[in-house]
C-alpha cells in the first residue's frame, strides 16, 4: 500500500515538473509591409501624442491666466518635445519670480527639512 502511494506520488511529481516547460522564443522573418506599418504606427502615435500635448498646454496656459490672443503664439514657439514635457507639469515646474532674501535660522531649518524630504508636502503651496 505504501509502495503504491509513493509510486503515485513520484508519478505526480514528474508530471508537475513537466508542466513547466521552458519558454521558447519565436523568431522569424516578417514581411517588409509589416515592418513599414509598425514604423508608421510609431510615427502616428507620436503625432497624436504631440497634438494632444499641444491642446493640453493651450488649455492649461489659458486656465493660468494667459491672454487668449497670446496662447497660440506661445504654444507655436515650443517644439513638440517641449509641449509633451510641459503638459500636465505646469503646476510643478520652477517659475522664476523674484530675488528672494530668506535668511537666518528659518532658511536653515527649511533647508534641512527639504534635504531630509519632509517638505515634499509643500509642493502645492500657493
Amino acid at each position, binding site marked *: 500500500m505504501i509502495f503504491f502511494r509513493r509510486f503515485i506520488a513520484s508519478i505526480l511529481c514528474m508530471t508537475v515538473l513537466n508542466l513547466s516547460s521552458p519558454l521558447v522564443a519565436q523568431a522569424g522573418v516578417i514581411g517588409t509591409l509589416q515592418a513599414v506599418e509598425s514604423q508608421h504606427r510609431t510615427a502616428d502615435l507620436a503625432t497624436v501624442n504631440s497634438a494632444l500635448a499641444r491642446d493640453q498646454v493651450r488649455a492649461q496656459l489659458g486656465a493660468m491666466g494667459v491672454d487668449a490672443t497670446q496662447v497660440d503664439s506661445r504654444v*507655436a*514657439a*515650443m517644439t513638440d518635445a*517641449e509641449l509633451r514635457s510641459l503638459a500636465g507639469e505646469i503646476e510643478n*515646474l520652477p517659475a522664476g519670480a523674484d530675488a528672494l532674501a530668506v535668511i537666518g535660522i528659518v532658511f536653515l531649518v527649511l533647508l534641512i527639512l*527639504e534635504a531630509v524630504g519632509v517638505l515634499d508636502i509643500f509642493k502645492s503651496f500657493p
Partner: protein
Amino acid sequence: MKFAAQAACAIGWLWLAGCTASGPRQEAFGETGPGQVELEATPFFPQSEYQCGPAALATVLAAGAVDVTPDELVPEVYLPARRGSLQVELVAATRARGRLPYVLAPRDDVLFDELAAGRPVLVLQKLGAGPWPGWHYAVLVGYDRERQSVLLRSGTTRRLEMSVRRFLWSWQRGGRWAMLALEPGELPAGAEMDRYVDAAAGLEAVGRLDEATRAYRSASLR
C-alpha cells in the same frame, strides 16, 4: 531636550557640510582663462514684481543686439497663476525673437568659459527652500578669481557681487540650468555639437528656417 540636541547636531552638520563642500574654488573658474571678467556693456533692466524672467531674458537678448524691453516679453513668458516664468517659455521666446536658445551643459566651468568669451549667461537660481523655493532668473556678467566672487544683473541690482560658492550652490540647487541667446550661426565657447544641433532643430521645428539654416551651416563647418 533630545530633539533639540538632534536638531542642533543636524544644523551643525549641515553648516559644516556647507563649508567643506566647496573646497578651493579655483577649479570652478577653470584652469585657463582670465583672472577677472566683467561684461560692463551688458544692458540692465530692473525687474518689476515677479518679472525676473522678462527682465533677465531682455538683458541677454539686448546684449545680443535684439531690440527688446522686459514689458514686451511679459505677455510671452509670464504665467499669472504661477506668478513667474517657466524655463521652457524663456527658450521659446528666444526662438520667437530669431535667436538660438542654447542651454549649457550643467557644469560649473562652462559658465565661466562663456563669460571669458564675452557672453552674459541667463541662469536659474533657487534662493529659498521649502514652501518658498525662491526660483529666480539672473544674468551672470562677470567673475573675479581673486575675490572668489561672481557678478550678476539680478532683480533691481545692476551689479550684484556674490561669493562664487554661494552662487554655485544656488545654481546647483536650481538644477544647473543656464542659457545663452546666440546669434544663429554663432557657436558657444565649449560648443557641444549635439546640443547645438538640437537647438537648431528647435528653430526649424517652429518655422524659423532661415535662422536654422545658418545654425546648421555653422555646425557643419566645425
